[in-house]
């Protein structure tokens, strides 16, 4: 690879990867994206990367998948009053389920020593 980086290291990640990612990296393959990861990343512009908000809005990671799904479904069905009701309408119920399930696997707010 001939990237000329006279003042940048050629080495790849500067932070330790997750154990799974590292194991797969060793074999030359990357971890396949988990279902719901891409969909729920559309929430991050307001709710933060990995569902950890930096300001104002709720963090949405590490909560009960059932409760999250119920909330999102409700928002998508009730008379729209705020921006979340409209955001929830972007997705099919199946997609909301995938989002809720994936967000539930992420470390909740307050445990930010992980995945930093």
């Amino acid at each position, binding site marked *: 690879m*001939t990237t000329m980086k006279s003042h940048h290291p050629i080495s790849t990640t500067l932070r330790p990867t997750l154990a799974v990612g590292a194991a797969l*990296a060793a074999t030359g393959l990357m*971890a396949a994206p988990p279902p719901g990861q891409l969909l729920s990343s*559309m929430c991050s*512009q*307001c709710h*933060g*990367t990995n569902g950890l908000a930096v300001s104002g*809005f709720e963090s949405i990671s590490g909560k009960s998948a059932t409760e999250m799904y119920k909330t999102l479904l409700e928002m998508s069905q009730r008379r729209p009053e705020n921006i979340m009701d409209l955001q929830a309408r972007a997705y099919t119920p199946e997609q909301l389920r995938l989002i809720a399930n994936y967000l539930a696997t992420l470390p909740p707010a307050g445990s930010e020593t992980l995945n930093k």
Partner: protein
Amino acid sequence: MNANRRDFIKMAGFASASWALPKAVSAATTAPHVLVIGGGFGGATVAKYLKLWGGNIDVTLIDRDASHYACILSNLVVTGALPMSRIQLGYTNLQTKRGVNFAQGEALSVDPMAKEVTVKIGSDYFAYSYDKLVLAPGIEFINPAGNYNASLTPHAWKAGPQTLLLKNQLSAMTKGQTFVMTIPKSPYRCPPGPYERACSVADYLKRKKSGAKIIVLDANASIQAEPVNFGNAFSKTYKGVLTYIPNAAVVSVDSSAKSIVTSQGTFKSAVLNVIPNQRAGQIVTNAGLVNDPTGKWALVNPLSYASTLYPDIHILGDSQGTGQPKSGHMANSQAKVCANAIIRAFNGEAPDPSPVTSSACFSPITATTAAWLTASFQYDPTTKAMKRVEASFAEAPQPTSDGMQQMFHWADNIFADSFG
């Protein structure tokens, strides 16, 4: 792995380098390399998420500037409500926290066969090779006819020095004077943006330069986003201060005289904020990737943002022509779809068949209230295009102070999601 051993390109005026490529290093690394050109919301987000999701991928981000200035909140910098530092987004976190390699330089040309991009850094030229290339350079302006000079009649449609230029001109206005602004023909960067600017300026003039006025010359036939909120602002909130003139096509601009000829008349003013019509960023044009019917934007596969011409070159954000609105929030969404698709491609897999992209935007209407707009898109396999989910598309019922608070929360979170 790309084992390209070509020497770096020597261009006229380039002094020969005193260092050679360390071959040992290029042989040692086996990670695929993604080169990202453009460090705005699109480029920064794709660089970050490739590292976050992809693990063993080498990512290099190139931008012309040492840090990015966000257009988001920039109208409040123009009115003096916020300092420039509020919208300054550095690349430090992407490097130290996410492992992205960053270089400040200008990408000049792309060689899709050799899979190399020529980048000018300082006074030197380098060839950066890639396995996948992402171009996210934003917009380029189509300058109006006449004696047009953005240093005299700023657009402030790329934040940074232009923002300060317009801010200084606005604050120097006296009460009898007029601020004239133009709104470009759709599609352009940030559909609600120009109307937001009009409101921010009108509010400022009303509070600080009583007697001064603003004339809004819109090339479009009507308000392009949030027609109710902006329509009410124009006709009621700013009645007497703001005049809105639709169907005003720009004929020519004399930046020195601060005068403009349009299809709706000639105007001369103390401040002339021409926001020109727009097209894809220059590097996209240089690379021969502009191929939409209007000759302005690059066509891509919405499942991956790969160019319809070259499968290893992705174009996202303002420059691409899928018909989705051009905004930082949307570029962030597209970047995630693109990162996901590139990772899958490195794994030999097809892209996610059902991506969703989302756009949301909060706009100040007065000094204390803001409205919002949102729209989301689903992939339609019949048309192979992103289709707006109509049920998800709406503007705020009215501007509120809650909306203003939410605006700042949104800005903080999207800044961190893209650059943090």
